[in-house]
Structures are given as structure tokens and as C-alpha cells.
């Protein structure tokens, strides 16, 4: 964190011009449109409700931010959600005590995360391929566990945790999200670990040569990602009170969109949880608004896909436009310098113009 000497109002203005400021503007626009369509839109209960609908994806998006900033990607999270929910439901169905079933599901998450991490850090394969294989394989394991049935008998206490508010109007998942968001922000921005996540994302070779244990850090991240994904899978199953083999299928699209729209670079090394938090708010409200406008879930997903592309395309175009403007300004300045000079140099200037 650079503490500059510029006064606060100016710094705030600068922030407004940044990507995050743009996100804030977009968020306000979405809010205004939605609340004008539906009267009780901004009430606490509706906002809590809307948050709850996407809370599992939001929790994973926080973890995914770490991974993408680190220069990797984890496509297997959605399948892992299904796998942990499936493990828990199947074990409970077979008569295993509910606490043990939940614990086993979390262990599955840890193991699968470590499995991903093994191929990425020890064998040295690209994370995209490893987690793509994970996406297929873990979903395949869910099919093995649950087959084409649906399991709707889940532990009662888990259903209560998932469906009833815990403190005030907030259910457990929402509280967990805020706890994770705050601890994640502190870890990423203010701890040595967070600095290393950025450093490795910017240039992993430089990080390795400066003595950073890159492998260990990546391993920790992927194990944590597996754990968080399995936790989110349990929360999802608890909220729905049932699970099938296709539970949480395709969630990775929303999750990655949340992170990238939040200004995190897909190449790693830049971005912040602040932006991701804003983009989560935008996507939640956008999806909700589209639902209010009776758009089907598939169209909503299509719009999210478009948003994902735009969130990378627009900054790209803006930067190339800026580069072109800068080049033109340079040309004009060179022109003017040549114009004001003597006649022999005017030959040069005309040559410059020809170029």
C-alpha cells in the first residue's frame, strides 16, 4: 500500500476514475433500475434473500481471487462442490452419523485440492489442464456416487443451518461470506503471504530466484481452494435441502466472471478483493433484475458470459486507444517542433508527415 501525499479528495477522485470506480457506477445504475422496477427491492430482507441465492458462488469467488492473482486458475471448483455434497448425502443415506459425513465431505475437498496441487506443483503441469481434468473427473465421481437419482434426505441440523437465519436476518452462509471477505482482504493486502501471492503472480521465476517457496504457496492455495469449494458445496446442499449429480454444474463460469469483472488480471499479479466484492454485488443484482424481467436462467448465463468477455475486452480496447492517442500527440508535437524551426528542417517535418 502506497501512502501518497495527495489530499484525500483528489485520491478519491482518482479512485473513481479507476476500474473500481466504474464498477461502483455500474452497481448504482443496476440498483436504480432494479429498485424502480420493484418497490421493495432495497429492503433488508430482499437484499439478504438475493445475497443468499448466490452466496456459495460468492464465497468461492473470494478464494478464486487469490488463485487468479497468483497466475493460476481452478476450473474444478463447481465439480468439487457437487462431489462434497454428494459424499455427504451418500454417506448420510448409508447411515453414517451426520457429523462424520460432513467431516468426510470436507476431507474430500482437502484431498481433491491437494490432488490438483500435486499435478500443478510437483509434476509441473499447467493448472488450466489439471483443473479441466478435475472438472470432468470430480463430476464423474459424483455420478458414480449418486448416479441419476436425487437425494433429499439430509441431516436436519444441516438443513436448519442452510435455510434458517442464524443471527438477526443473516443465515450462516452469509455470515461466513463476510468473515471470509474481511479475513481474505486482510491476508491479501496486509500480510506477507498476500504479498507473496502477488509477487508470484507477477513473475514466478523471479519469485523463485529470490528464495520464495513457490511450490509450497501454490500447494496451500489449491488445498484451500478445494476446502472452500467443498464447504460451499455443503452450504449449497443444505440450502436446497437436496442434491443430484448435476448439482452446481457450470458454476465456474459465474465464479470466474465475478473475479475477472472485479478487475483481477487473468495473467495474474494485479487486482484486489475490493473490486471482486463490488463485482459480486453487481452480478447478484443483475441476475436478480433479469429474473424479475422474466429472463430464463440460460439467458442470464449468456448475459454473464457476455459480461465476462466485455470485462476483459473493454480495458484492452481502452488501453490500445490510449496508446494510439499518445502516439498521435507525440506526432503532433514533433510536427510543431519542426514547424517552428528553420526551413532546412522543414524538409524533415514533411517527411515525418509522410510517415
Amino acid at each position, binding site marked *: 500500500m502506497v501512502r501518497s501525499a495527495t489530499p484525500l479528495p483528489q485520491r478519491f477522485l482518482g479512485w473513481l476514475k479507476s476500474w473500481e470506480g466504474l464498477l461502483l457506477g455500474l452497481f448504482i445504475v443496476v440498483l436504480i433500475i432494479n429498485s424502480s422496477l420493484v418497490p421493495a427491492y432495497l429492503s433488508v430482507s430482499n437484499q439478504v434473500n438475493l445475497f443468499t441465492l448466490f452466496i456459495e458462488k460468492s464465497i468461492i469467488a473470494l478464494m478464486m481471487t487469490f488463485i487468479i492473482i497468483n497466475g493460476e486458475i481452478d476450473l474444478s471448483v463447481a465439480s468439487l462442490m457437487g462431489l462434497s455434497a454428494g459424499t455427504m448425502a451418500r454417506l448420510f443415506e448409508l447411515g453414517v452419523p451426520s457429523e462424520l459425513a460432513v467431516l468426510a465431505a470436507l476431507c474430500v475437498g482437502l484431498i481433491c485440492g491437494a490432488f490438483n496441487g500435486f499435478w500443478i506443483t510437483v509434476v509441473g503441469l499447467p493448472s488450466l489442464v489439471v483443473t479441466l481434468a478435475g472438472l*470432468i473427473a470430480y463430476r*464423474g465421481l459424483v*455420478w458414480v456416487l449418486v448416479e441419476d437419482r436425487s437425494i433429499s434426505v439430509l441431516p436436519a441440523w444441516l438443513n436448519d443451518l442452510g435455510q434458517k437465519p442464524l443471527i438477526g436476518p443473516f443465515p450462516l452462509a452469509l455470515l461466513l461470506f463476510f468473515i471470509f471477505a474481511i479475513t481474505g482482504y486482510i491476508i491479501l493486502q496486509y500480510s506477507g503471504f498476500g504479498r507473496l501471492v502477488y509477487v508470484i503472480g507477477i513473475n514466478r521465476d523471479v519469485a523463485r530466484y529470490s528464495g520464495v517457496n513457490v511450490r509450497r504457496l501454490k500447494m496451500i492455495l489449491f488445498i484451500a481452494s478445494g476446502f472452500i469449494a467443498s464447504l460451499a458445496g455443503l452450504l449449497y446442499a443444505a440450502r436446497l435441502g437436496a442434491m443430484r449429480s448435476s448439482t452446481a454444474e457450470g458454476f465456474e463460469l459465474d465464479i470466474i466472471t465475478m473475479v475477472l469483472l472485479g478487475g483481477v488480471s487473468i*495473467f495474474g499479479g494485479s487486482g484486489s478483493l475490493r473490486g471482486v466484492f463490488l463485482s459480486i454485488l453487481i452480478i447478484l443484482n443483475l441476475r436478480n433484475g433479469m429474473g424479475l424481467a422474466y429472463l430464463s436462467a440460460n*439467458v442470464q*448465463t*449468456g448475459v454473464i*458470459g457476455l459480461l465476462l468477455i466485455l470485462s*476483459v475486452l473493454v480495458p484492452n480496447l481502452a488501453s*490500445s486507444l490510449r496508446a494510439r492517442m499518445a502516439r498521435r500527440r507525440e506526432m503532433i508535437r514533433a510536427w510543431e517542433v519542426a514547424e517552428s524551426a528553420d526551413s532546412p528542417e522543414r524538409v524533415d517535418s514533411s517527411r515525418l508527415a509522410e510517415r
Partner: protein
Amino acid sequence: MMTSLRRYIRPEQIRELVLVFVIVALVLFFGTQIRGYYSSSTFIRFSTSIAILTVVAVGETLVFLTRNYDLSVGSIVGFTAFFVGTQLSFYKDIPPLAALLLAVGTGTLMGSFNGMLVAYGRVPSIIVTLGTMAIYRAMVVEYPGNKIVQMSALPTWAQEFSRVNVFQIGDFELRLIVAIALVVVIVFQLMLTYLPYGRRLYAIGSNPDAARIAGFPYQRIVFIAFVLSGALAGLAGFMFMGRFGNLTVVAALGTELQAIAAVVVGGTSTMGGVGSAFGTLLGASMIGLLDQSLLRWRLISEFWRDALLGLLILLAVAGDRAIVERLRTIWARSELRLRPSVATTIRQEESVHGS
């Protein structure tokens, strides 16, 4: 002996040979497990399903060679199949050739949208195609009319399409669909080996920066790769429609994962620059073989398919990293020893650049 052998056989060819052995071993193994395995009906069913996968996977190979990914092919296959199917069931007098052109044209259009964003918009391919995968699928789901295409509504030639034979020897029948796939493989293998465009794909994948500095039209080459991938997916969509006839909005869901698996198992590097259409044919054959055989194998539930598929991808990629790349270095070294003239030129160049 060894050195002369190295001169004629490349590591990639050894890898393909191993793959052929594995496929033969699998056929022999399943032959002992499944009754009536060596029959013409098994061959027809296997070869037609492999044919569709092969056509998609060859397009994916081109994209992989440039160090990109195309996750949208499954949705393109689904959309073209559904689109052409709907058109045919409304306008029964569309000639077959026009329907084929319609399918390929639609695929080309979708592929060029991907290619434009990747090559000219400089958006990473994983983002673009993750987004368009959702967009194209949403287009299928929201396609006006009833959400289903029925075999009985199609014109007669389309109903007969999957049963047309190119030739028949005794019980052995080669279906038209299979012949199309074989032609695609041969044409694209020749293109990759002999046409300048094919060689440029390898050049770009091996080292994008070097290719750009050497003055290759980088953007155009990548763009065309995506266009071709889309066109082949469109062709596969046509074959898909002809084979299944009855289509729903989830047609060809998940084909992209199988295609990527076929490409990777077939020896194409995920880092670009290595691979062939013939290898992809072998990869697709192996995956189609496993897929169809597991369906019929009593000992293991069919739900294990995807779990095994994921593991297969990991093993193929890890095996490449561990063995094939090492072989390649040995080959390169012996090449230097074989041709002293090459070694001296390299040494001379090094001394020139060193001074």
C-alpha cells in the same frame, strides 16, 4: 543402429505407435468381457460416434497448436445441429447440400466471432470461449419454436443420412459419416504437414513472440484457426443431427470436454506447437472406444466414464511431460551429432552473437 532409427522415427511417432498398441489392447480386453463385441453392429455404432468426435477434435487441434483453447465447440455443435434440424423440419425441400452449407456456415460465423475477440480483441481464448460457450448455449435454449427436433419431422434424406454406406464388404460397412471424418483427418493432416499455413500454426505455437518478431501475421493465423474450428464444429453439428435425429436443447452438451480430451490424449501439447490430426484421430478413437465400451461393460457402472476420462487426460499430459519431452531432447542431441555441419553452423552463429 539406434542413430539410424532416430533419423527415421520421431518421438511423436513412437507416441502414436504406443497409442495404437493401447487401443488394440483395449479392443482385445473388452472383446473378452462383452458378448458380441466383434460384430458389425458394434463397429458401426463405435465408428459413427468416434467420427463426430473426431471432426470436432481436429478443429480443436488447430486451435491448440496456436497455444489457445476453444471451449465453445460443444455449444456450436449443439446450435448448428438444432438450428439446421429446425429449419429442415419446417422447410422439407431444402436440398442436402444447402443444409450442409448452412451448418458449416453457421459454425464458421460462430468461430469467427471467437477468433475476432481472441486475435484482434486480445482477450485470452479461455475467457472468450468460456463466455461464448454460455452465449451459444443460451441461443439454443432460446431458439424460437418448440424446444425439440423430432426425427419424424425431418425430410427422408436426413432420416436416412446416418445409414448411408460408402462401401460394404460382407458384414463390414463404412458409413458416410465415418468417411467424412476420415476425409477431414486426411485433408487437415496434409494441410498441417505441407501448406505454409499449417507450418505457421506450429511456428506460432512453439514461440508466439518469435513468430511475431519474424513478421508472421500472428493475428490472422490465430483468427483463421478459430474460424476453421468453428466450421468443423458446424460440420460435426450436421453429422450429429443426421445421426441422432431427435434433438433437445442439451444436444452435444459437454462435447468440448471430450474433444479436448481427444486432442490431449492424441499427443497435442497444451503449450502449443506439437500435435497432428492423425494423433487426434487416435485420441478420439481411444476415448470413443472407452466411452462406448464402458456403457456395455457389466462389471463397472457406466457412471465411471467421466471419472476415468479426467484421469486419462492427466496421465496423457503427465506422460508427455515425463517421457516424450525427454525423448525429444535426446533426439535433438543425436541430430546434432549426426550432422556435424549443423553443429558447426550453430557454433559459428553462437560465436558471432557472443562477440
